[in-house]
């Protein structure tokens, strides 16, 4: 099979469990399967976030104990990296590129449009819990900006109109799933 046939990559809603939908055993499993690697903490945090959708506060003491580090150390690492979230995201994660090459192609106007359309700012989630909005500083798509990412899909040359169509599609596909 060709890697690039990304049938598994199609967007729609990511099946992310709701808040509270995790157990200490899940955390223990993820830590146990990686803790013997060199420098295991980032891989562990990635694995937890991939499984649960975020890194719950309650995971910190479990990780700390199993890695024999302090809670403060684990906490410090989680808070240092923009990628890790400590609260669940909405059904869809939307990242808008704020960096220079996208600015040069109308990225700033797109940022304003997106915030207005969704009625949220960065690091916020829409009240219907459909979309969490995050800034991103470059997606490596800099010749075809402005660029955004919706869940695992990067989209280039996004105009306000293209964005509106996308949001409509996202929200209807979620409704169909429900």
């Amino acid at each position: 099979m060709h890697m690039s046939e990304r049938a598994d990559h199609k967007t729609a809603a990511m099946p992310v469990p709701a808040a509270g939908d995790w157990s200490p055993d899940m955390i223990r499993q993820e830590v146990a399967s990686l803790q013997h690697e060199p420098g295991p903490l980032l891989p562990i945090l990635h694995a937890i976030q991939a499984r649960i959708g975020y890194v719950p506060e309650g995971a910190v003491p479990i990780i700390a104990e199993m890695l024999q580090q302090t809670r403060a150390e684990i906490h410090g690492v989680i808070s240092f990296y923009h990628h890790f979230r400590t609260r669940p995201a909405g059904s869809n994660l939307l990242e808008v590129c704020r960096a220079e090459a996208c600015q040069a192609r109308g990225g700033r106007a797109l940022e304003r449009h997106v915030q207005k359309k969704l009625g949220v700012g960065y690091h916020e989630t829409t009240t219907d819990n459909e979309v969490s909005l995050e800034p991103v500083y470059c997606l490596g798509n800099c010749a075809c900006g402005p660029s955004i990412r919706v869940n695992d899909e990067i989209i280039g040359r996004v105009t306000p109109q293209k964005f509106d169509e996308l949001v409509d599609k996202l929200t209807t596909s979620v409704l169909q799933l429900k």
Partner: protein
Amino acid sequence: MTITIYVPCDTTALSLGADRVAQELQVAAAELNKDIRLVRNGSRGLFWLEPLVEVQTPYGRVAYGPVEPGQVKELVAAGLFEGNPDHALYLGDIAQHPYLQRQQRLTFARIGITDPVCIEDYIAHGGFAGLKNAAALTPQGIVDEIKASGLRGRGGAAFPAGIKWQTVLDEPHDQQKYVVCNADEGDSGTFADRLVMECDPYMLIEGMTIAGLAVGATLGFIYVRSEYLLSRKMLDEAIRRAEEHGYLGDNVCGNGRAFRLEVRLGAGAYICGEETSLLESLEGKRGLVRSKPPLPAIKGLFGQPTVVNNVLSLAAVPYIMAHGGKTYADYGMGRSLGTLPIQLAGNIKQGGLIELAFGVTLRKVLEDFGDGSFTGRPIKAVQVGGPLMAYLPESQWDTPMDYEAFAKLGAGIGHGGVVVFDDTVDMGEQARFAMEFCAVESCGKCTPCRIGSVRGVEVIDRIRAGDNRDNNLVLLEELCETMVDGSLCAMGGMTPFPVQSVMKHFPEDLMASPRPVEA
């Protein structure tokens, strides 16, 4: 007869609908009962033409582009499967395209031509020839070849790769050493690392393996930024297949030496592109910059001797080992030898990857390759080398792309990104963003960077608001000097460069009040 069709699978092609184009081609072929073999090749880096569909014909790989989803039916009706020229999107034999013909693709010789994860394809196009040569040499022999090539680090600091490798080789042998690939590619306007990983991942594997043999390292890590999910996926698959074929493992190329590779994901921190912050991150810590010395070459990952190189530095190695350091050094000028993968981005008509010998002028890149701005308006400023580098006004575009020539301007080549802005840009806003970005991404270890950047945003806001302007301009100049002189790393130390370039070359924009935002 089977018709071979190519549809690229890199991030940019996908971001413009390549998957849907590929599906539509399959549907169209089924409807017409055509037997097609659909190959998902890498991108050739002619991004304004993506998705670029190619058809294998007796006259070469004939291309159509940019093909939008929904356009396939019409193209097929016009004879796409036969390579028929009667369509506005017809481009002819893509290998003859002037954008490619005018380049010197040494590192990027294969991209867009091959299926990225197909190891036979890689070998058929010269892959692993460098590793075979290296495996027959002593470690010192490999390092000497890299020195002869004149290769300097492509990650930004332009440090000679051969000297770095020598330092690691000279450390005592009876200890663990590492090769770490810096694939954090955080600079806006850059995508060449991504193209290597997505479109020719075996080249990076080969380069790292050669580095391992050269310095006596048995384990390598590729630190990929978390934004690059596709790169990660391609690398994981390529590493798996390389192991299967004996190019990685306990007995690399049958010469008895071991080398293994592992991909690690970053977590959205620009500063983790700085090599010591990256090492901290790999060790599972906050990405705080370490003070040097000790150099990573002596005390790097887990305190062990470590080669840290950018993707492009390591990707240049297979060519050097296959064709000889001297051949590589025949390209370029002065102390900038070999080729530079230029990434043309932002407001430009023909953006993409342009690999050329050092020495080409920026104007040539913008005009001959870029064909002017995307919007058709005059180009006002160009930022070369990422968010920590100066904005260049037109008077500086005749400078040759050479590390020393750019340094003389107070500018830099960095990782080779070229971001173009047309005359609608508000350079005051760009100066403000430079400070804002530093405030968001500072690792927080030193005050000039952590606090200075926040103050920088405030001072620029006051200047733009006309509040005590003259005094605030002096304050901004002093703040920039403090950051340059007092920061531990280039994050705080170079953030002032774009700001100072705006003060110098575009002062009228800095003084102008921010433009009203349309509702």
